[in-house]
């Protein structure tokens, strides 16, 4: 069991999400940076779908009530075990009574904490991913007790896993054409691909809005289907990038679709960060 002494800014249990109920309007959810969540599990030898703690910007303070092993990936939020700084992307043994806390965010926006055997919070509709209206809790709170499997494989070591952290500094977001891309005119596509865009303060697990506008003359579409990574263009010219908790349907033109790795990359961006769209061709 892990006791939550402080929940941090916004910490939430996520696995790879809830894909089977999209046709009933249920968002997929899942870790915002799926690659980082998978990496945290891989370091511990967990299954890739095991539930991890997604930690946003300011980390929580957690007390371990049993021995286990942990791994942190994604953003570097200055993790500290008891009074010692620890590293991301490494297997770390913890003992009963140890306290994990965080300091200053260094780079990236979302860190992932995996524990050996995974977090054991409620499974709802085949997933532990927290989502308002589906799971009872929508995030972790002070004094929560998070169930984990106590383990004793302290000596077990794993093959070296290649860790990528350079993506935290990457600005280029790779995109494919969205269903309504062909409706854009030359000026609009020039603006899209020759300018940097700034992450707006309106960014969360549902969507990231961008500050710069694209003059828009496209009319809305008959409500159709969207995905995490879909870039919508609103009547006012605002670009909205849908993220993991996105609704399943929408009525704004879908002009771009992010590559899977670029969704993970964007999930590490915060308000004021700059990105640039790079258009890719679909394999034919």
């Amino acid at each position, binding site marked *: 069991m892990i006791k939550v002494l402080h929940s941090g800014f916004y910490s939430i249990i996520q696995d790879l999400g809830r894909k089977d109920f999209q046709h*009933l309007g249920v968002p997929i959810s899942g870790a915002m940076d799926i690659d980082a969540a998978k990496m945290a599990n891989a370091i511990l030898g967990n299954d890739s779908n095991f539930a991890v703690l997604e930690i946003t910007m300011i980390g929580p303070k957690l007390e371990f009530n049993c021995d286990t092993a942990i791994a942190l990936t994604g953003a570097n939020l200055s993790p500290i075990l008891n009074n010692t700084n620890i590293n991301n992307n490494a297997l770390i043994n913890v003992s009963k009574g140890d306290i994990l806390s965080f300091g200053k965010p260094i780079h990236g926006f979302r860190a992932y904490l995996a524990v050996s055997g995974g977090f054991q919070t409620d499974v709802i509709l085949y997933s532990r991913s927290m989502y308002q*209206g589906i799971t009872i809790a929508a995030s972790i709170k002070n004094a929560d007790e998070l169930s984990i499997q106590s383990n004793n494989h302290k000596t077990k070591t794993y093959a070296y896993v290649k860790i990528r952290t350079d993506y935290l500094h990457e600005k280029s977001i790779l995109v494919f054409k969205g269903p309504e891309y062909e409706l854009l005119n030359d000026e609009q596509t020039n603006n899209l691909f020759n300018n940097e865009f700034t992450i707006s303060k309106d960014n969360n697990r549902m969507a990231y809005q961008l500050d710069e506008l694209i003059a828009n003359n496209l009319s809305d579409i008959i409500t159709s289907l969207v995905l995490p990574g879909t870039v919508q263009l609103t009547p006012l010219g605002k670009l909205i990038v849908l993220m993991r908790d996105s609704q399943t349907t929408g009525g704004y033109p*879908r002009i771009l679709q992010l590559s899977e790795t670029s969704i993970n990359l964007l999930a590490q961006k915060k308000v004021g960060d700059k990105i640039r769209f790079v258009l890719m061709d679909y394999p034919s």
Partner: protein
Amino acid sequence: MELKFNDNLSHFILQYKPFGEHSILIEWPQIISKKTLQDVIFFKKRLENYYVKEKVYIKSAYSSILITYNYTINNFYNQISTLKGIYSEGFEVENIVSKLWKIPVCYDVEFGLDLEDISKKSNLHISKIIELHTKPNYLVYFIGFLPGFLYLGGLDKRIHFPRKNTPRLQVKKGSVAIGGSQTGVYPNESPGGWNIIGNTPLNFFNVNNQNPCFAKPGDKIQFVSISKSQYSEIHNQVKSNKYTIESEVIDD
């Protein structure tokens, strides 16, 4: 509406578009119609039958289907050819049984927060608004926006009413509302800009059920006006899992 297999249904000209690395979007001509919906439902059923052994995710809207694979598609041309084949060859599917669901709604002004406003602005008596809202059998086009939110077609033109300029931050679970030419039920508490005319004690989305949402595309919904005391009675039955939603098989 009992849909039967029919070769003649497969005559729409469809567009197939890559949509990200894992998905293909299939689009019908962009109109909202029952005929389009029937064809969407049929193609979806065929796809479900075709991919019975493979994990794919298929969702539909008014005039589109999105199929998402568990792997990266590295040859869209081949994948789209397969889909076109499934559509044109008309793989046989079993009859799809559609149901009419009777949804009890209390239209008391205690729930129907915007009834008086609509009544004033549309010059219709509240009882007339209720009459017009409970008359049609609304067609379920698809489920989206929120878990268990049904997109319904068939709202009487006389009670089309524009969305509120400022959405409410909290719309109560079960609220029955009108937004422009659409009507619907908020399955959970959420922000919302539609005009609220009543409330249903039923659950439109229940995570504890094998099938969390009772309705599916092609089904129909009829709203039935109930009193406040009936509302609390049904509310209690729903709470203790003793309420069965009244329904009948549609055959038209």
